[in-house]
């Protein structure tokens, strides 16, 4: 039976699309975790903790949202954590030297973006597999950051700048507003623009995408550039939140960001997933880590749990995919 015939014979599509259903399941999972945690810990439902979860999830989302686009093209960016570290250290230096937060923010975004474009060039022009290219970039960036900082810490930024990370507006942390903005922009870009749809097409079937005239190299460059710029964006919020920059701030960021993307239902094999799903993924992972914190589980368990979740998420994705195809 041909695929077309199969489609014709398939039952009529339900009111809720498959993608929406997948996200609904994930939202229910997040709700379930909330219910369990509110029973296990008294402090979980306190306003302070909920705002804390939202802020943590926002920070994770900034990195993970750009990464989502990369994973949609069946690539991977392992350098995001190291990118955050270098961008934060350079932006911090600029703010302290010039006293201008605006210049600092621009430096952070530019550093992140340039690193992303370099990743994109390695993948497109040099044709190095993305996970190796960005892994190489990770160690180059790590080396540069440690060399540049030489064990120093940059500390103390203007109060106005620190508002970006630790301020409140109408009772909600500023990063949550940034999250909403980037969630809206990311969703519209991916779902409603030609470039966004071309990114999906590139990931789903690169050969078909090339034959239908999509400039694949340029779209890949864009995707890695956006991923790098979002890492630069995250570095600014981290800088404002921590009020200090150190060479090692990015080390524990990459694995959770990848986990958020995969929990959110974006497939490693490309072409499937949404930016909103990644937001839900970031929320679920933050809730789990926050719960472990509240139940005073040793922090060393966090990478273990995140690692297991990454593997589980890919496995579930592959299972469901095999069943539908």
């Amino acid at each position, binding site marked *: 039976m041909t695929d077309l015939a199969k489609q014709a014979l398939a039952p009529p599509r339900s009111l809720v699309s498959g993608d929406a259903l997948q996200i609904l399941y994930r939202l229910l999972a997040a709700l379930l975790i909330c219910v369990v945690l509110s029973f296990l810990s008294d402090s979980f439902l306190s306003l302070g903790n909920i705002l804390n979860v939202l802020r943590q999830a926002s920070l994770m989302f900034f990195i993970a949202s750009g990464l989502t686009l990369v994973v949609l093209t069946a690539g*991977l960016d392992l350098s995001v954590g190291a990118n955050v570290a270098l961008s934060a250290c350079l932006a911090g230096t600029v703010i302290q030297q010039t006293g201008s937060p605006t210049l600092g923010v621009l430096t952070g975004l530019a550093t992140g973006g340039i690193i992303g474009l370099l990743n994109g060039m390695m993948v497109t022009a040099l044709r190095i597999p993305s996970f*190796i290219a960005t892994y190489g970039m990770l160690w180059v960036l790590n080396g540069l950051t440690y060399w540049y900082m030489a064990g120093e810490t940059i500390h103390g930024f203007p109060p106005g700048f620190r508002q970006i990370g630790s301020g409140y507006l109408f009772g909600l942390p500023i990063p949550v507003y940034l999250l909403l903005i980037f969630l809206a922009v990311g969703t519209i870009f991916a779902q409603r623009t030609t470039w966004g749809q071309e990114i999906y097409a590139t990931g789903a079937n690169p050969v078909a995408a090339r034959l239908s005239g999509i400039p694949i190299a340029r779209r890949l460059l864009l995707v890695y550039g956006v991923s790098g710029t979002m890492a630069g964006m995250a570095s600014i919020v981290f800088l404002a939140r921590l009020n200090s920059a150190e060479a090692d701030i990015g080390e524990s960021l990459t694995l959770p960001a990848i986990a958020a993307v995969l929990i959110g239902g974006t497939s490693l094999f490309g072409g499937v997933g949404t930016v909103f799903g990644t937001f839900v993924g970031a929320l679920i992972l933050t809730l789990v880590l926050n719960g472990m914190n509240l139940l005073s589980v040793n922090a060393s368990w966090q990478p*273990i749990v995140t690692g297991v979740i990454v593997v589980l998420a890919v496995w579930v994705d592959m299972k469901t995919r095999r069943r539908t195809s």
Partner: protein
Amino acid sequence: MREAITSLPGNPLQRIPGVAVTLVLLVAVFGSVAPGFLSPANITNVLVQSTVLMMLALPMTLIIMTEGLDLSMGAVLTFTSLVVAIVSLATGSMLLGLGAAILAGAVFGTVNGWLVATLGIPPFVATLGTLGTAQGLSLIISDGQSVVGIPHSVRDIYSATVAGVPVPVVIALVSYAAFHILLYHTRFGTYIFALGGNREALKYAGLASNRLLIAVYATGGMMAGVAGLLMTARMNSGHPTAGLGLEFDAIAAVAVGGTSFERGNGWLFGTALGVIAVGVLRNGLNLMALPSSIQVASVGLLVIVALFFDGLRSRS
């Protein structure tokens, strides 16, 4: 059909130039600019220090030949080196420490192989997951502290000599010989070539390719156990970040050595030269009093350059 013919593994001798030129260039540059680089003591030092990396790069070659990757090797090495320290401290026996480390490494390797072969999870993600697990477990069993006061029998492994040759170098040479025989003179080795080049053919020949793949990853874990002993002996303690990033040096050695990431053909002797090249690069930069961060960045650049040339070759 033509594609199939041109993608056959080429004559390995064609690849000698790449890694040999790299090595000669590095030696020439550091010989002229780094003080004391060419002294016999320093050359022995480079060789002895390269042995830990050799333990990881040999199995990494086999894993990359199966179109796989093991990002967890450095973290697993950290874990096994802590196991060596803790077990030998508790029992006073170096051999029990080594046995426990090899066992622990084998468990991690088998889990990696199972995730990749049986569940079909892409290797770089599967091993990224075990990387996190090994890192967390290392912090838990060490409580984030160094394990000190380990017995002399462990320390002596690093400083002792056999007929004038340091014991770590002997272990590295024996391991190289074992892997050479395994890869080029046993059926298992032939299957490894097939796992990367033509997995379908293995299936039609009625071979359990899953079990072969698990065995390849398990070998990697066990070698990380042996490397754990050398690492603990070298540092005279177990440290919860001992192996941080070493998997990348191993990948660098394999890439520089001319093993391809996409075509399932590998070259073990190239890896050995690649290990020495990475060792020379780190040692030379060290002698020039450049910080280890610059060494890390240089190894990263070395990999990117090596892969660029690998890509050029595969296109021509």
